[in-house]
């Protein structure tokens, strides 16, 4: 191509990899166009968004097909296109995109789920007057997310990452007239910012160390062996290598995006946005971006294995993930808002993914990511359909008996719920979760994560059953009765439901070609892998857990559908625990009394200082001066009057003489300047001579 580009060695790449950039570009262009539309251009914007995204989906499928055929031919596809974006001084900043199994799979997932959700939202947002704006944001988001996926440069990834954050902010605050929505949007933006600052630090450090931000660059990339070995030699604080430290910084960013423990607080509040948004951004794709990021820089995280085949960075990832999984699941048990429950379950599932990445590697985590994307999107859209049917009612205590009112929704929702619980054999969640559990079982560092995750599975089953019972079981407890949603909303549910079941079979231990594609080795079907004893026990354990959870929840909530006023069954059983859970372990309150309170306190303090100390000093000085002045005046008036006036006149005359200098004529000043030049030059020459 051009000089600028040819400065980077290019390998021959397939045509699809050449035009891979179109996948994100088209939706972004569509967003730009629909931004120009008037409010009335509803159909146009919807058509733009859906059309562009289906185009991206098409290309993504082509890309995936390319990868797949390569894989069947025994090649691990890895095609990169890099170019120099900007060049200052010696170093230059390169951007580029990469087509490898990871990005191909993610592309298909994002564009497919996104497309379904777009179609769904044409129904869900029908009556919103800012329809156009909504689709503008949505396709901007989709484009940016696809950009994150194909980025071959940490910088490009970060740019798209930030656009994603921006769109998330815009969409959470889409109904900005609701103060709660505005607040939630701000919270989400700021919380993720905290993570992103660390992320940026990591990027800068990486650039400083390796001089490039490209992931892969024919051996010269920042996460390829050459620069990794450099990074490993660089020691950082607390016995970490630079690689580990950078990995941790990047993980902080990822934690911010995908709501890991300390920074998870924004995700539940993000449910203030329209439900399709929650489905697309805060369940399927954006929160997965963090997980994807870790998967992308996995070589960096895994560089320089310690004893036991794992590294500091990965250990941290694992522990945070496992803890988040249990923590969020616990909270989810005691929520009443249908979307909040799903939000917390999302957080906990993200914890699973992180743990999976930490312990089992890319394939395990990403597999759960994909399956989760489908069934969680399904659940959210189902929830949306429920809310839609119940006239914007979100409290599950005031629902019930929808089984008969909204049968199709119930069916699909049930499938999603079973998939999320990991109901044995039939559902994708089971297999992907099993992958993680298996990895946890064989993890060398500690066994605790394994038990935590198993417990998490139990809780998942519990709270999902509770929700199901409340929403669909029993009899209707709300206002005017619910009715089924339009077909345009149901059809996507159906499709997602299908995938929520089918997707499991591409990753069973019997025929694990999903992980095979990712790891680039052949997959062959042998059913013996299923009845391999260690695995059998594991599957048995998780099955037992699932049934235990469901049974337990049924025993608690059964089919009795209490009045909303009656306290929750679990609350009756264990009030203290309940209050902790329903207050989300007081994390928000904790932040409120620590961080935020500190800022408030500090601002008050400085305000007080301004008012009293500095102000006081100034006032005091002023007062002293005025006292002196009074004294002076007294002396003047009575003692040195006559003589002083004379002096004053003298001074006035002198001042007048001085003020002549200020003629107000430009040329005078210019003259003075020139004189100064003369003098300076003369001095300079002299100093040079001597």
């Amino acid at each position: 191509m051009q000089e600028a580009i040819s400065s980077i060695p290019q390998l021959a790449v397939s045509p699809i990899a050449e035009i891979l950039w179109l996948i994100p570009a088209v939706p972004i262009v569509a967003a730009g166009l629909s931004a120009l539309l008037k409010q009335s251009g509803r159909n146009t914007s919807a058509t733009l968004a859906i059309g562009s995204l289906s185009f991206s989906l098409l290309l993504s499928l082509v890309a995936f097909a390319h990868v797949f055929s390569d894989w069947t031919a025994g090649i691990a596809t890895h095609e990169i296109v890099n170019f120099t974006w900007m060049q200052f001084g010696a170093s230059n900043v390169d951007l580029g995109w990469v087509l490898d199994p990871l990005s191909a799979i993610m592309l298909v997932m994002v564009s497919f789920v996104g497309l379904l959700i777009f179609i769904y939202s044409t129904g869900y947002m029908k009556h919103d007057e800012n329809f156009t704006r909504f689709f503008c944001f949505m396709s901007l988001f989709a484009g940016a997310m696809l950009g994150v996926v194909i980025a071959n440069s940490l910088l490009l990834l970060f740019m798209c990452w930030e656009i994603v954050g921006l769109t998330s902010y815009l969409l959470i605050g889409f109904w900005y007239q609701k103060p709660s929505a505005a607040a939630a949007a701000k919270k989400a933006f700021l919380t993720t910012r905290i993570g992103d600052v660390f992320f940026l630090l990591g990027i800068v450090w990486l650039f400083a160390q390796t001089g490039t931000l490209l992931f892969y660059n024919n051996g010269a990339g920042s996460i390829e062996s050459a620069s990794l070995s450099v990074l490993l030699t660089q020691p950082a604080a607390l016995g970490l290598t630079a690689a580990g430290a950078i990995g941790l910084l990047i993980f902080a960013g990822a934690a911010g995006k995908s709501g890991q423990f300390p920074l998870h607080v924004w995700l539940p509040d993000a449910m203030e946005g329209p439900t399709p948004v929650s489905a697309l951004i805060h369940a399927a794709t954006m929160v997965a971006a963090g997980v994807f990021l870790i998967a992308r820089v996995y070589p960096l995280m895994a560089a320089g294995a310690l004893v036991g085949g794992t590294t500091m960075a990965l250990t941290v990832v694992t522990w945070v993930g496992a803890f988040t999984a249990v923590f969020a699941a616990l909270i989810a048990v005691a929520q009443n808002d249908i979307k909040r429950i799903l939000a917390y379950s999302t957080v906990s599932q993200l914890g699973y993914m992180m743990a999976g990445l930490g312990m089992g590697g890319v394939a395990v985590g990403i597999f759960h990511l994909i399956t989760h994307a489908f069934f969680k999107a399904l659940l959210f859209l189902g929830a949306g359909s429920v809310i839609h049917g119940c006239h914007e009612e979100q409290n599950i205590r005031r629902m019930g008996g929808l089984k008969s009112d909204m049968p199709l929704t119930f069916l699909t929702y049930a499938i999603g719920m079973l998939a999320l619980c990991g109901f044995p054999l039939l559902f994708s969640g089971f297999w992907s979760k099993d992958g993680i559990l298996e990895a946890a079982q064989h993890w060398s560092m500690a066994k605790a994560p394994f038990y935590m995750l198993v417990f998490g599975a139990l809780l998942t089953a519990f709270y999902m059953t509770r929700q199901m019972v409340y929403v669909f079981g029993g009899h209707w407890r709300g206002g005017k009765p619910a009715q089924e949603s339009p077909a345009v909303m149901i059809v996507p549910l159906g499709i997602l439901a299908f995938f929520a079941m089918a997707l499991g079979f591409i990753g069973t231990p019997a025929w694990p070609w999903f992980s095979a594609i990712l790891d680039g080795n052949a997959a062959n079907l042998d059913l013996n892998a299923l009845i391999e004893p260690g695995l059998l026990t594991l599957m048995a354990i998780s099955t037992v857990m699932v049934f235990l959870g469901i049974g337990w929840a049924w025993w608690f909530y059964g089919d009795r559908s209490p009045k909303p006023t009656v306290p929750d069954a679990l609350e009756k059983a264990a009030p203290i625990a309940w209050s902790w859970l329903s207050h989300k372990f007081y994390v928000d309150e904790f932040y409120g009394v620590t961080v935020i309170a500190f800022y408030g306190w500090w601002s008050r303090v400085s305000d007080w200082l301004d008012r009293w100390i500095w102000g006081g000093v100034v006032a005091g000085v002023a007062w002293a001066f005025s006292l002196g002045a009074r004294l002076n005046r007294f002396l003047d008036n009575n003692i040195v009057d006559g003589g002083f006036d004379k002096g004053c006149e003298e001074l006035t005359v002198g001042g007048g003489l001085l003020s002549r200098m200020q003629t107000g004529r430009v040329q005078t000043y210019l003259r003075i300047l020139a004189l100064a030049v003369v003098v300076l030059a003369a001095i300079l020459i002299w100093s040079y001579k001597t």
Partner: protein
Amino acid sequence: MIENLDQIFVLLQHWLVSFLPASWQPAAGVLLSVAAIVCLFPALFALTTVFERKGLARIQNRLGPNRVGPFGFFQPIADGIKSLTKEDIVPSSADAAVHFLAPVLLVVTVFMGFAVLPMGRNMVLVDLDAGLLFYFAMGASTELAVFMAGWSSRNKYSLLGAMRAVAQMISYEVPLLMSSVAVVMITGSLSLTKIVEAQNHYTWGFPHWYIFTPWGFAGFLMYAIATTAETNRSPFDLPEGESELVAGYHTEYSGFKFALFFLGEYVAMFSISGLGTTLFLGGWSAPFSFLTWVPSWIWFFSKLMLSIFVFIWMRGTLPRLRQDQLMNFAWKFVLPMCLVNLLVTGLWRFMGDGWLRWALCSAILMITYAGMGLAEMRRQRLGPRSYRYAE
């Protein structure tokens, strides 16, 4: 043989120069070429005037000059004699020196422009590395001459005409440059010979002229519009709008000086058309690969005359604009269009070859064109004209 015919002028020059001592030869060669240019284009100018008058006459159902010589083809000679023998009047209050210098400066700068125009294979006076820049530098200098003429004759019509002319030239110089920059971006050189060479390839017998690309086509249109305005030709001929100001900035000129202005304008038209030919129409390269045997200079000059004919045609067809329309058009339509065109050119340069870049580039240009055109029409409440009496 054909090669010799193609290079005949070059060979002729070498042959003539070869009589001189070696030390003089370069200078002599240059002088020779200059002489050739200085003789050729006035002759062309004479020819064009009569062509224009007859062409306009035909367009307006008249006969045009038909008395002097066969079909009035000796008309220019008669005009020349007249203008040479006429009294040279200088207004008493005029600023004599400036009044005298203006036409000279105009003609000189205009002729300078030809120095870098390749009029055929190896037929360029000086092949500057920054040829295009040189050309525009010279073009910019003519504005000053116009102003001098208008200001020095101490006549409000002249002054108004000059002001209009200068304002118009400045406004349209921007799109002129912008549309040429697109070509430079693709060729990667400011040298006009290189630009021609870059267009002198053929696929399936068709040439790679820049006009046959989306950006080139759009650029050529912009360039043509800007050119018409630069040379104060109708429909942009406000500076000498006879109906408003007597004759614009050369109202107070008579006799030979007036002839010089006249000459200057036409030669400017030739040179700028020549530049357009060089930039977009492949300069001296043949339009089909099987016609490459025809001497290159024939192609150059036929293209030149073609564009001249288009000028005449437009003059005969289009009504004159109003000053504000002129400026609005320049700044609100042509300039943005050129900027978009630059963008598209960049896209073209950096997208690999293939149908995709054709589709994308043309799509962008079309959309912008349509959008801005419609907006402009709505703003000015323009619409299809309704003929009340003709039907």
